[in-house]
């Protein structure tokens, strides 16, 4: 039953460009990118108990490094991607050392402050970043000579990367290290007494989350062929956090569903209602009231209740 559902889902995802129009294929690509980003944030929020309001930093840093290297310094996409991911991971390592001096609200405030610093730099260092104008006229890479310029080809590329990310993150959370991480989230003192190093476990997770945040940032800049400081903004971090919490933090499917929800609302509702944020707020309120643990855990509970009632 589960296998059939998974096979159907895989077929649907693979064949999507054959029966959907360009608008929807592009929307799906954006959802895939947002899903990777939300999955990486969920490592911190859901599995690590570290609520970050600055995760857009890693998306933005990766996107900016790639944009600058390819457009201004004439790097090829391959090398630019490697430098960009390495730079983003190093940024996460550095920011992690600062942010992990605190936990809880203190941690949240430090991540927020650090991301604001980057956002400010992107705005003000206009001789490098082009400030408020952003960097335009970027190109998409051509892996193995395949052009990614059509909506369908980019979608498949994004689907490939997102599936790999999902798989890697699924393995990560079910590994010994993932168990250590959840243990440190639930009982840090006990974990230390058992021989685990809570700080190191949190830091490594922070770096790993930054790495995947960087991957989503690369896809983001490839997709848009444009980067603007707003992608580093707190709004961008908060939207992803909202998606993770709405979908169900600490689950694998939750961030994907949440990211899709936020993007669909943004794209659909904004066509009809100017204040789409208000609608997002209402939907979020509804979720918090009726499914306080998020959509995926909420639906699971509902399905379990139904099954029991039918028995």
């Amino acid at each position: 039953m589960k296998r059939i559902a998974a096979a159907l889902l895989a077929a649907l995802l693979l064949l999507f460009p054959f029966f959907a129009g360009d608008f929807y294929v592009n929307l799906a690509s954006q959802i895939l990118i947002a899903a990777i980003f939300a999955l990486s944030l969920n490592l911190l929020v859901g599995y690590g108990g570290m609520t970050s309001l600055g995760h857009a930093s890693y998306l933005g840093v990766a996107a900016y490094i790639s944009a600058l290297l390819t457009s201004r310094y004439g790097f090829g996409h391959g090398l630019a991607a490697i430098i960009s991911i390495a730079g983003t991971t190093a940024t996460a390592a550095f920011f992690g050392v600062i942010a992990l001096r605190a936990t809880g609200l203190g941690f949240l405030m430090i991540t927020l402050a650090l991301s604001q610093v980057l956002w400010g730099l992107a705005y003000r260092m206009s001789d490098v970043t082009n400030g408020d104008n952003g960097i335009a006229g970027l190109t998409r890479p051509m892996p193995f000579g395949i052009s990614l310029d059509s909506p369908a080809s980019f979608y498949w590329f994004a689907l490939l990367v997102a599936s790999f990310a999902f798989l890697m993150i699924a393995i990560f959370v079910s590994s010994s290290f993932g168990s250590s991480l959840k243990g440190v989230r639930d009982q840090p003192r006990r974990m230390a007494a058992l021989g685990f190093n809570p700080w190191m476990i949190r830091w490594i997770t922070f770096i790993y989350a930054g790495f995947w945040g960087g991957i989503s940032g690369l896809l983001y800049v490839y997709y848009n062929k444009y980067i603007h400081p707003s992608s580093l903004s707190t709004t961008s971090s908060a939207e992803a956090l909202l998606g993770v919490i709405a979908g169900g933090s600490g689950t694998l499917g939750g961030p994907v569903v949440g990211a899709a929800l936020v993007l669909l609302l943004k794209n659909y509702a904004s066509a009809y209602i100017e204040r789409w944020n208000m609608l997002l707020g209402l939907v979020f309120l509804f979720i918090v009231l009726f499914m306080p643990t998020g959509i995926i855990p909420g639906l699971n509970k509902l399905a379990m209740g139904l099954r029991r009632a039918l028995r």
Partner: protein
Amino acid sequence: MTRPMSEHALEVIDLKKAFGGLVVTQGVSLSIRPGERRLIIGPNGAGKTTLFNQISGDLRPNAGKIRLFGTDVTRLTPHKRAHFGLSRTYQIITLFTGDTLEHNVTLGLLGLRPSRWQMWRPLSHYGELATDARRTLDAVGLLHLADHPVSDIAYGEKRRVELAMALAQKPRVLLLDEPLAGLSNTERSQVKSLIASIPRQTTVIMIEHDMDTALDLAETVTLLNYGRVIVDGDRDAVIADERTREVYLGA
């Protein structure tokens, strides 16, 4: 790394700890031999748990030294002390409530193994970890509940999971903080025989209020009051001591 030889499993030397003006540990010194069964008693607020927290590294003393098998560990973090062979249980049950009993004990095993850093292999692929965890659960008589989450089991059973997590680590020094607290008479005798069966390679230091049960398990007793060692020595000598009666019966 060569470890200096020592005839003591644990040495606490002139330990001092104060929270602001409140002095909770005042020059406490203890010497405990390998394999010894030591009971620490004292009225509420005597500083027993605070002493444990300093030995385990959760609290840092203001002055004094703590040595494990001759090595000064006073400045080491709790997780480093665990790798020196120190394990503990908590007075307030500190378990992973959403996880199964097997997973709880597995975490105890994982804490001392390098595989705890492994990120690319599902935990369920480590067959020997599961076998070891189930063996430990069997030893505390909880194997039949191995697949249940901790939130499903009774309080007395949780106490035994606390013990199982520490025992799984095969510690050289084991700190038990009120392992009998809140147990019924039957559970009490179960846990008592469990503690009695701990192998002699493990030095056991226990805080306990239930004297009837605890004294049977102890060879030596330390009486604390107001953060000071009042009497220290062989069990019978401490019980017979005038000062013990004074503390407990008020002269």
